[in-house]
């Protein structure tokens, strides 16, 4: 691999990893508090992208579109929590997981009915569709914007969870829900906050994903959420920094696997990614940044 190719793929991987990270944060946050692997998070992402599509079709300026899409998506995320997840709080892990799958299937097919199956071109502003050439490396502005937005949001999130009361309450709940409740933390508030933040990040991820690939469709949520799920496992279930690290590792792993594997093997990319995942689980099941050793027999 030449140096310029390496550089190009590097930027690529950073962009992909940033989107995975935004999705993975939402997954990890909800998992940390509720022990729920929220597969419907992918549909939240999809709805965020579609909200942006329709607001943009109404002719609004792009920043307003993003803001409205995020607000709409947060509302959808909270509604989802209220309707589907509040009733099964504390249910067995498997029940939680499958309920989120059912929510995901219902939302997917609802979107299929509402928006029809044809992919729609995503209205990416022309300003960020440009290509820059820096030292022989072609860089798409979309990638730069993606990385920038993701880093900014992650910095804000860090400030939030470390400097605010609610953020501290969230961390406390994730650490030990019962003790947190005994200390007077309102569990529902924390859960609502987690869903709201996760949904907002997913909406941004959906918009960035739309800008990256150029189109949106009702089934677009499954792949990102699956990858983000893998990222949270690599990073250690429920750990937000871990999820971010996992997301970037996965982004780099995917891009460089395609680049390095000989053509006839590149189809096996997912097999390699998941084989690596299993190996990580076996030798470091607590994930890259996980601190505690989970039960192993």
């Amino acid at each position, binding site marked *: 691999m030449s140096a310029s190719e390496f550089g190009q793929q590097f930027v690529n991987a950073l962009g992909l990893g940033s989107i995975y990270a935004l999705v993975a944060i939402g997954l990890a946050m909800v998992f940390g508090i509720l022990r729920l692997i929220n597969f419907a998070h992918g549909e939240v992402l999809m709805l965020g992208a579609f909200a942006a599509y329709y607001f943009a079709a109404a002719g609004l300026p792009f920043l307003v579109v993003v803001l409205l899409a995020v607000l709409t998506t947060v509302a959808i995320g909270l509604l989802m929590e209220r309707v589907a997840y509040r009733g099964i709080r504390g249910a067995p892990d498997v029940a939680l997981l499958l309920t989120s799958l059912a929510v995901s299937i219902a939302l997917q097919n609802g979107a299929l009915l509402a928006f029809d199956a044809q*992919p729609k071109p995503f209205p990416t502003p022309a300003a960020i569709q440009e290509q820059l050439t820096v030292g022989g490396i072609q860089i798409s502005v979309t990638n730069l914007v993606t990385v920038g937005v993701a880093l900014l949001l992650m910095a804000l999130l860090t400030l939030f969870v470390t400097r605010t009361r609610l953020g501290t309450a969230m961390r406390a709940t994730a650490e030990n829900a019962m003790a947190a409740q005994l200390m007077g933390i309102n569990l529902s508030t924390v859960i609502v906050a987690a869903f709201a933040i996760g949904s907002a990040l997913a909406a941004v991820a959906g918009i960035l994903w739309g800008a990256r690939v150029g*189109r949106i469709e009702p089934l677009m949520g499954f792949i990102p959420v699956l990858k983000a799920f893998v990222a949270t496992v690599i990073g250690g279930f429920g750990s937000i920094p871990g999820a971010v690290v996992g997301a970037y590792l996965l982004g780099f792993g995917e891009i460089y696997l395609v680049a390095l594997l000989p053509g006839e093997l590149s189809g096996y990319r997912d097999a390699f990614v998941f084989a690596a995942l299993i190996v990580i689980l076996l030798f470091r099941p607590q994930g890259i940044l996980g601190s505690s050793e989970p039960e192993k027999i």
Partner: protein
Amino acid sequence: MSKSPNESSLVGAVSAQVREAPGGRLTRRVILRRGAAIGVSAPLLAAAISRAPRAAARQETPNALSGEPVVIGAPYNLTGALASLDNPARDGSQLAVDELNAGGGILGRPVELRIYDGKSDVTTVTNIVRQLVEEDQVSALVGLTDTSYVLAAAQVAQDNGVPYLDVGGTAPIITSVGDYVFMIPFGDNVQASVAAEFAQEQGWSTCALLLNEGMDYTKFLAQYFADRFDDDDIGGEIVSTLNYGMGDTDFSGQLTEFKNLAPQPDVLFISAGPDEIGTIVAQARAAGLTMPILGGDGYDTPLLTELGGPAANGVFFTTHQGIYGDDPAGQQFTAAFQEKTGQAPNSVFAALGYDGVRLMADAINRAGALDGDKVRDALAATQGYAGATGQISYEEGSRIPSKSVAIVEVRDLKPTLLKVVVPKTVAPA
């Protein structure tokens, strides 16, 4: 905020189940009664299964048509991965049925299209085709656009002696299922050969190949193209082959690899489905790949220009003739579709679905009866049928139409017909 699941939570989980399990021991009598209930309910169950849905027979029926409607079964994957191909095809089929009912019907009888959703799942597809054939007793089958599903449906049709027209599956292997199975589109080997010969004409001798490894269609097309492109009379060279998976939307890894080929290939052959080609084209141009892009009829969707934008200019593809140029049948279809739905046909699959129903109706009328074997013989005898996707004739013993192939270039975001050709040599199916 790191934490880990462990066994204690499982204990909690399971104990909840145990605790909440409905109480009350079952007495033996109850058990026996329940056991008996299962036995008794079995025939009820069977009776319930047989409740055939009869819903969609509410088309307006002009006075001229009388008698029981002729029911044509239309299995389509309206949800799931294939939804974006099968929905337009379904719309085309429905348009054909509406036209038949406004005109002469089939054998003077009204026509009903019974549509079931295969959910892009092979098991469900066999279920619905069996339901159509054995439960609803349809007279003929028209539908499905991808080879994997077509093969499953064709087997059921063949076993039951019901004529089946494949709408979009282009793998020549389809017709080897049996003599009741006919194809509307040409085989992939035909369009791949046309594409390879066209590349030679244009003086493109090196080619990088990108293919979707998740579809029959794209795999066959790429393979046939590579075989023909390598042939001595063309003498082309495939310098790199990369693939991607079904549902992938980010192709930057593969495209960057192509960008780093030195020297750059003369042409990219991208064997892609309709969903992703616009995206690939846009990403390819963004990655700095400026050479012409060549492909098959999967490109024939507005998504190519919608998603590709200006990047779609300079894309060449082989496709079904009819919608392009001045073919009267194709123009007539386009106009009718526009009138009915308020928009131009959004995919060539609409025209294929339309041709499927029209040709089936034509064959039944020629057969003069609904018997499967008579309709099969009538289909096999089809010569020069003017479809919206070109002339359809089945040669003796072949159930793949020998159609000519249109070569189209996108200019100013408009697919523009270059020419209609028949390949010099066709790679064997």
